[in-house]
């Protein structure tokens, strides 16, 4: 059984980022497994129209007006005609939205339900409940997710968060991690000498990435440890603070600011160091620390969000998001590296067995199997669900859903189904699904070294 899947999100290439690469990697692995994947996103600059990526993934760059940080203007209904066209011409079964901040995704899920498709949603980020923006997003999320068939979260913490935010039944939420292409994050052939310890920091330099902690901690570490160097990659509004810190403490020869780093260069930067320092204040999954560990770096990270779930404790030193504790943890890491009590070079193989996109795609496929088995709900049931979303919001949501339904009737009349060409499919791969893959012997390896090593070739 293979499905036609539409990934809908505001975030996609050419913009770099975690959600973007997640969508691409999962799609490509799903294509490998015999499905057809179409990605729908908004246009980036002059990148408008329909494009193909490697592996026959078709990308629709829908021309829309971008409002803020590559998020399209939330025009509740204007996306519907185009989405309907795409869905019909690609014969989509499942609409899979990504990213709760993406208006495209939320609209897409709503319209897909109106058209009677199966929907799935992947949440990549954590949100609080306090500030106004979160409250608004949460309300919207409640609206769209109250009717979504299944939700995927990248970590258990993220799952808790999403269940709370959108008032979901926890059973409709799966936790499926991100992954990494581990062959892109091999450790250095010859590990850097431990005479000078190099600490690598790669992150977008935003306040929520803990840059203030870095600013406070780096001078202390430099003062305490003689032969420690820092490499900081990434850009953002906090870069100026870091530069001021360097100037003030005269650390120009010990702290190197690299500026923005392309994703394919991350490995080359990482293998220059022995320790990766991650001071983020909130993180749903923290792919970058997995990448760092895969590159053979010992990871010092703040214990926030989903980070504690991501790596085993022998690869990491957790710290509280406090200046003193980060300092202490980094010092411990430096000592551990110097004394050779940890062997970060060995991390790569372990990581390779923990995370792979093939595994993610497999698990996502199981979610698809599950939701394809669900009956699609009638309009009145959907309306009931929306109505329960809140005293005022519920009525508003019901109104939206009804208008959406009427809009669909109008579209059926104006652009009838029979006048819409069905696109030709990219030649599908042979379906390589193995039913019940090695689940029985999964216990064995787990007992042996702590994780299941049922991953086949990684390529």
């Amino acid at each position, binding site marked *: 059984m293979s499905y036609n899947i539409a990934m809908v999100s505001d975030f996609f290439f050419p913009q770099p980022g975690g959600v973007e690469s997640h969508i691409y990697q999962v799609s490509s692995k799903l294509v490998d497994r015999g499905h057809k994947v179409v990605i729908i996103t908004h246009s980036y600059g002059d990148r408008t129209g329909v494009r193909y990526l490697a592996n026959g993934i078709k990308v629709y760059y829908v021309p829309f007006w971008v409002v803020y940080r590559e998020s399209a203007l939330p025009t509740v209904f204007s996306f519907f005609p185009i989405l309907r066209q795409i869905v019909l011409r690609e014969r989509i079964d499942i609409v899979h939205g990504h990213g709760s901040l993406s208006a495209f995704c939320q609209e897409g899920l709503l319209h897909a339900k109106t058209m009677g498709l199966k929907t799935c949603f992947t949440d990549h980020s954590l949100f609080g409940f306090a500030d106004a923006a979160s409250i608004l997003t949460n309300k919207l999320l409640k609206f769209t997710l109250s009717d979504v*068939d299944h939700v995927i979260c990248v970590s258990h913490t993220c799952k808790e968060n999403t269940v709370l935010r959108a008032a979901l039944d926890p059973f409709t939420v*799966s936790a499926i991690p991100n992954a990494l292409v581990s062959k892109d994050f091999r450790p250095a052939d010859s590990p850097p000498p431990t005479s000078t310890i190099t600490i690598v920091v790669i992150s977008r330099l935003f306040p929520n990435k803990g840059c203030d902690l870095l600013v406070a901690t780096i001078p202390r570490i430099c003062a305490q440890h003689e032969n420690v160097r820092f490499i900081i990659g990434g850009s953002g509004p906090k870069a100026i603070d870091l530069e001021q810190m360097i100037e003030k403490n005269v650390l120009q020869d010990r702290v190197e600011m690299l500026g923005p780093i392309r994703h394919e260069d991350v490995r080359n930067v990482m293998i220059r160091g022995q320790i990766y320092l991650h001071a983020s204040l909130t993180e749903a999954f923290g792919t970058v620390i997995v990448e760092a560990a895969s590159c053979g770096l010992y990871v010092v990270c703040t214990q926030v969000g989903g980070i504690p779930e991501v790596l085993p*404790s022998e690869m990491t030193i957790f710290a509280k998001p406090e200046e003193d504790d980060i300092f202490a943890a980094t010092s411990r890491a430096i000592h551990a590296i110097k004394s050779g009590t940890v062997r970060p070079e060995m991390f790569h193989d372990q990581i390779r067995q923990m995370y792979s996109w093939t595994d993610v795609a497999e698990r996502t496929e199981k979610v698809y199997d599950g939701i394809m088995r669900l009956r699609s709900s009638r309009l009145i*049931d959907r309306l009931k669900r929306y109505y329960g979303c809140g005293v005022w919001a519920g009525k508003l949501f019901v109104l939206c859903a009804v208008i959406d339904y009427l809009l669909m009737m109008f579209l059926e009349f104006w652009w009838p189904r029979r006048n819409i060409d069905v696109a030709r499919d990219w030649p599908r791969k042979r379906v390589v699904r193995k039913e019940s893959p090695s689940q029985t012997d999964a216990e064995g390896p787990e007992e042996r070294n702590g994780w299941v090593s049922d991953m086949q070739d990684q390529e």
Partner: protein
Amino acid sequence: MALSLSSTDSPVSSGFDRSQRLSISSSKPPPLSNGIKSPDTSRNGILHHPKGLKQYSSTLLEIPTAQVGVPSVSNRTPSRSPKEKNEYNLPTILTEGPSPTSTFSYSGRGTIKEARSRRRKPWRKLMWVKQNYPDNYTDATFLESLQRNVNFRAYDFWPLVYNTTVIIQHISTVVIFVCAFIAISVGKVQPGYVAGASTILTILGWLIWDNWNEEEQNLLTKVQQGVSSTSRRESSGEEEVMAPSEKQKPVKSRPETEGQIPIDSRLRESKSSVVRSASLSPKKSDRASNPQSSIGSTLSMTPSGPNLDAIKPNGKLGQPLARSLTAPAYSSSINPPSRPPSPPPPPSRANRRLSTLKSALLIYSTLLGLSPILKSLTRTTTSDSIWALSSWLFLVNLLCFDYGLSEGDTEVKRGADGGTQLPHGNLGPPGVGNSLRRKLPTSLSTTTALAASVVLASRLTETADVFSLLLFSIQIFGLFPLFRRRLRHLSSVLHVSLTSALILFAGGSLHYVVNWQWSLMWFGMVFGGGGGAAWVLMGMQRYKNEIRGPWDPARPVFSRRQWAD
């Protein structure tokens, strides 16, 4: 509705689970305020803790369903927890027919039933382990780290009402001022009466203020002598005593500058002065009786009314007013004691009084000179614009006034009332930015009030009218707030009585200047606003629902050293 299903299916086991989790959660150290557990427990939290818990849940619970952690969370919330927690994760998704779980079976990982029958390792909240559980498995530890209403603080009615008195006081002064303006412009009151009465009250207030300064200085000196034996020279005279104390703790330079200006305490000072001396003396004596223990309280009290001044002796005459206007708040609540002492020796009391008198005279004569100019300032403007403008200015004044209810100030107040708590003892970095933040609105409110009074005064026709109104405005908007604030910190009884006197006087002047309906409206507004607002706030607290958890952005904690430099 997997939730209700599971609980009805196995009430016993869920009850057991509840008690089990209770004991665990109670033995656990309380989570930090930012929702992050302390590191050792969290290390445990990854490995041991869920494991131990899990054994119960997987062996005792028949169904590995969502015991969404209802009991543990509702237990952790404070007593007034408004809602049951499961209202927040109510599973609202109901596909018609059976619940989604029943239709969901994961082919690769075995159906839920199959998984249950097999004996499994306990589930762990980790992503890097491939576990023999479906991806949508929801453990009993689900949402365990959820915290609700962490900083919940139940309000009581009367303290809330008491806190509104500060606002009411300020509104009363504005009303009184507007009444005075109307009375002067209509001609109901001779302008000289207004200015004269307010000046007399101001002088009285200043005498009281001066008296307070003396008392506190004495008290401080005694504490200093008692606690620190390092005072460099002993002195017999009262004036000399100030010197060592100043050398050692030049805690507050600014509030003292306020002391040299006559403070307008227009209402009821004769009465209050008597009461004050009575009420202050016992306080002073009991503080002095155990000076060692009250060092903290004096530290915190000094900002509220210290008499040590470094600036005053060399300060020019115009300066004190400006300073007191721009920074009347207790702006920086802690000055590091390590700061070097300010060199100039403290002036004698007589000196201070003299300079105060001089600055007062200067203000008087300046106003006198300015009044004829102001008289004709807005002649070409229509009255409507003036009324609108002054209304807006007064509104800004009311909104921006520093009512002194911010954290730092309440701490100071508690300390001054005799508590042994250091201000900012448990707060984060001491409020350098805090004080900066607070200075601006205060000066803004004073400025707007003076601007409004200038604008109003420019409608008057006689020079004497303008002069007396301006004088009145400076006293009531510039000086009286300082007096009020200090009085509030000294004695709540006096504060309440001053408030009621102000309310009565404002009502009375409304009645006299306008009519009794307005006066009635005023009283209604005061009582309805004060009591009603407190009541509404308490009612709204039922709906307070603050959710915290590990997903919140952590608040970074910096060591103090960072802020000291």
